[in-house]
């Protein structure tokens, strides 16, 4: 059973952008460095705190439909990267690269997005953020 979404270990895209330590929920749940590429249809885009949520319907080659939820940081954090309340619309066909959770559920946090109009948006977190200065 081979789904359309492709699991890609952190080699190609994964190393493009490290995730800053911004998570509201902590990082322990995520499979750090792993990447999953989702090609699917937008069901809902929730622009809210503490995280924005993208519900995405992904259909595998066998016809099986998987409901993914990809999260972004809060609106004020992802605004500089170009994410807006109307970035995703119901029915849009988009490609989203996520860092999945460890437990195998169809959940992850957004690393990169290719929108229906071809635009690419980066990590759904604080653009331009520098690492926290250490002593």
């Amino acid at each position: 059973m081979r789904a359309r979404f492709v699991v890609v270990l952190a080699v190609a895209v994964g190393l493009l952008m490290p995730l800053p330590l911004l998570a509201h929920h902590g990082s322990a749940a995520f499979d750090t460095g792993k990447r999953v590429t989702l090609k699917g249809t937008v069901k809902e885009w929730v622009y809210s705190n503490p995280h924005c949520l993208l519900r995405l319907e992904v259909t595998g080659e066998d016809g099986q439909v998987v409901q993914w939820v990809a999260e972004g940081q809060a609106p004020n954090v992802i605004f500089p990267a170009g994410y807006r309340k109307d970035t995703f619309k119901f029915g849009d066909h988009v490609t989203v690269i996520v860092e999945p959770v460890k437990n195998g559920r169809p959940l992850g946090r957004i690393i990169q997005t290719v929108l229906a109009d071809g635009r690419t948006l980066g990590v759904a977190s604080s653009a331009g953020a520098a690492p926290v200065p250490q002593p």
Partner: protein
Amino acid sequence: MRNSIFVVMVGLFMAAPGLSVDTFAQSSAPGGWPAPEWNKPPITDANRKPAPRRSLAGMWGPAAGAGAGTQGSGVQLKPNNGRPENQLPYTPYGLELYKSHQALEGADAVLPAQDNDPRNRCEPLGVPRYNHYNVRLTQIFQDEYKVVILYHYDNRWRVIWTDGRQLPRPVDGGVDIAGDIREPRFFGYSVGRWRDDYTLEVQTVGTMPEDRVWLDSTGRPISDRVRVTETFQRVDYDTLVWSETIDDPKVYAKPWETLKLPMRLHDPRTDIQEYYCSPAEQENYNRLFGNTAGGK
């Protein structure tokens, strides 16, 4: 008539420390709603302007970028990453408290849905934790009696009195103000004094007890006997350095430094997006993501 003009002039003079619009170019933002600008040129000898006397007023953001004040892995100067140099001088009680906290960040992080961080119930974070939680655009106003800090996260505000009043005396269950016992507060009782024309030193006592607030997002504890000392040093016109030391003998065997965060002046007209902890949105997030993500 002359009295009216005098009143207006006095009013403008009083407001002057809070006005810095003239130092910024006319906004070219669409519709006149400027978004935060984080890619500012560095301050050098060529563009450095002198700091105004006894003024912290302005819209400030972490100088190193939008995420530089996040402190997701613990207080800035002592991240909770297990390294020996970042071990804290816990008292036995303090260590017991730390172990009772199930945090989502740091060396002992737990999975979502297993945590007991009061933040996730949208409780006020209190002082000093607001200084260590997503410090982003921070507005400071002041008049001759007080300095007011508007924190971005959860739209919270805090008063620091600079009118010469005494710092209350901490007692069990609150503070003593001239024999009057007052309640503990999330923001405590803050009093500031100008150490020199460019440095305000702030003392805070009377904060909430340890079963209500944490120090940071990694579950480090803080008690109601903490004395927080902050300094706000206006290094130049565009730079403010925000430092903090905590002295909490109930939890830590000695005082230690938690923060030294350079802040950069931003356009005072910058539009700040809301960053609320909404219980309804939190519940929705947990339903769609958090609870499942944290499951086995």
